[in-house]
């Protein structure tokens, strides 16, 4: 039993964490009107096996993409002008053997027969974030930057998996912020 406990501790503390790969290949933005800035993220996403298994076993996985509009204040750092996020849920529907991607804000559902298809749909959903910014309020001369990232929503995981997520940083998608200038 002692060996089992030791193994458990080692597993908990020392085992390498399996992290989700989600890379923002490219990002751009487009003003839909004077108050809406559409940010488009082009993502390459993949899931670790453990999360794929979890998904297949009925675990619902939520993702969140965040977008932030900042301007630089010299040595004082940056200040966020506006931020927005989008939450998308990915789950497996056993009755139809499909993966379901749900935009949690718009309650729109996409159905995919494979994980790969589901991830593509997921990337599309996550990659469209609308930032409500008054374009006229942006002061000329300031250096505005857009920052974006995608991460797994730990809090939406079942509690037992949150142990792993918290203790070992498993399934972490804490990618760095992807930045580009607001043209």
């Amino acid at each position, binding site marked *: 039993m002692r060996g089992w406990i030791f193994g*458990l501790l080692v597993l908990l503390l020392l085992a390498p964490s399996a992290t989700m790969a989600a890379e923002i290949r490219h990002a751009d933005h487009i003003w839909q009107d004077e108050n809406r800035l559409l940010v488009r993220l082009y993502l390459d996403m993949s899931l670790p096996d453990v999360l794929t298994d979890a998904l297949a076993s009925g675990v619902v996985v939520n993702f969140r993409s965040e977008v932030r509009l900042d301007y630089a204040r010299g040595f004082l750092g940056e200040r966020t002008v506006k931020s927005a996020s989008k939450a998308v849920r990915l789950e497996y529907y*056993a*009755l*139809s053997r499909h993966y379901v991607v749900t935009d949690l804000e718009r309650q729109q*559902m996409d159905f995919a027969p494979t994980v790969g298809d589901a991830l593509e749909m997921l990337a599309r959903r996550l990659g469209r974030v609308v930032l409500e910014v008054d374009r006229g309020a942006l002061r000329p001369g300031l250096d505005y930057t857009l920052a974006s990232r995608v991460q797994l929503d730990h809090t939406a995981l079942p509690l*037992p998996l*949150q142990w792993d997520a*918290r203790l070992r940083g498993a399934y972490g998608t804490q990618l760095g912020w992807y930045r580009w200038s607001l043209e």
Partner: protein
Amino acid sequence: MRRFPWGLLGMVVLFLLLLASLVVMGDAAQNSDRFERLFLWLLAFHGLVLVVLGTLIIYQLSRLIVQNRDGVPGSRLTLRLVFGFMLVAVLPATVVYYFSFKFLNEGVDSWFDVRVDGALEDALELSRSSLDLRVRQLSRETQEIMRQLEDVSETLVPLALNDVRAQMNAQELTLVGANNRIIASSTDSPIRRLPSPPGADILLRMSPGQPFTRLEPQPDGSLVIRVVATGGDRRPGADSRILQGIYPVDPRMSALAVRVEDAFVDYREFAYLRGPIKQGFIFTMSLALAISLMAALWAGLLVARRLVRPVTDLAEGTRLVASGDYSTRLAVSRDDELGFLVRSFNAMTRTLSEARQEAERSRRLLDAERAYLESVLQHLRSGVLALDGSLRLRTANDAACQILECDLRAGHNRFPSEFDEDCPLVAQFFDAISDALTQREKEWSREVVVFARSGRKVLMTRAVWLPNPGNNRGLHAIVFDDMTEFLRAQRDAAWGEVARRLAHEIKNPLTPIQLSAERLSRRLGKTLEGADREMLDRATQTIVQQVEAMKTLVNAFRDYAQAPRLALVPLDLNGLLRDVCELYDGEGQPARVALDLAGRVPTIRADAGRLRQLIHNLIKNALEAVQGRPDGEVRVSTRSLEDDHGRRVELRVADNGPGIRQDFLERIFEPYTTDKPRGTGLGLAVAQKIVEEHGGIIECHNQPTGGAVFVIRIPVSHGGETGGVGEKHA
């Protein structure tokens, strides 16, 4: 003053905090929001507490081990108690942990059953089959609708769609032309909503001639079946068409299927989370166990120290008492049995201290009494000896040493027989009384005679046997007095009285006897002739001579009995000796008289006439001893002495005659004691009397080389100056 148990209080507070945090942690593990907010903080708190507790425990244990190695009092007991507490805490906790662990593993596993899993799979498959039937049916019907619409113009299509939708009870029917252009759409919703053409993902997956079907859950939990069928407009120049139908699933079937699917998913998810659930429980349980053990160990350390502290204090106090410090008092900090022990210890040390003070007082008193007794003993003129039951010498005073001429104190604890060589008088004395000592007569007295170099000593001895109840060996207390001088004085007085009476009673008739004899000679001598005359003359002559002899004897007795008053003047003894010895330096002397006078002899206060008589007596006595010996010699010597008796002048008159018989030597100074046929026996008695009149002593003994020697020691007068010039001549 009792100290407040801050350590114990801190431990209790810490333990309660840990307990509360464990409860909060357990609660947080059931609630996602709380988990998110509290879990890491609680984990950090527990980790910090574990590290602090562990550090403290390791520090305390290592210190305890070092103290134990260094032999610090109480450390071993503390260590044993700590290990005991640890054992008491660890064993049950380990047992509980083991069974909890086992129960948790097996319990969580028992939640899952292969049959349940299979049943759920079957139920899901049943739902799927049931829905598949409906899907296939709708697929066929949709294809049939598509065929019916092939001959309908775009103008009439909306009407046809409405009819068909109503007939099919579809939720929505949409006919799409080329480029995803919506030709017509019909919906059951009273609120007009935009039709949703099939998405690109659907179009990409469609096979020619095969309709696309999909069961889709809806946000409201219901199910719909999407069917997309392809077809064409058979009229010339018309594009191909796609018909999408969305059909609701029967609510009852939908609800059942959704419930089955939910149950299946929940079960699968639960089964998948089995490992993490166990890990979470075991982690919490291990944390609780670790904290409990740490807290128990820490509590054990504190409690052990609290328990052992009085014992340690007692050990230290006992050590101090053993080293003689009876002033040790321990602080009473508790009311339990250990407190009672400490109070008893304090009472014991107090009693010991008082007893010691009392013993010290008694010892001082005893010392004072002993010193007093010692002083009394030392100043007694009587000799006092104490012997234990085995006849070992325990006590002797100065007088005893002086009388027995032996330093008896050096022989403390020795048997009398061990004094043989050094102290002959002691041996003689104990020989004389040994029978009484060995028989342990209760009380006895006897006159003991010993023989010293100075002569015979008479010791009046009294003794008592003191059986000591506390010591079976008992004690002989012996008191003795040197009665020699007293007896001699008594005898001298008796002899003086005899001499005075003799002189008085005998001398008176001697003169008439002599006169009568002379008258008889004168009267009858004229009348008688011849032989008668001669006889008369001889007889009267004899009478006269004998009367003269008797007068001489009587005068001698008178001289002995009636000593003249001394005329003490400073006297040079050497000069007097030279004057007297000159009388013996001439022809007709039986032997020569040699002088061996010391160079510087102190002046003495003496009666020159009496000393002259003394010297004459001794020299005449010596000459008579060597009479007839061709090498006869009388040696007269002087010397100065300084010893315990003060400064004295010693005069020695020695001869090389035959010496004196031992039996005669013992009473040589007694009156009327003589070994000469014509001696009066008063010469040496008179000599002794003259010496004693001058405060001196006279001794007589035989020389190892032959002959006898008379030794006279006369004290030097106070302030006496050294006078005289020594000389040596024959």
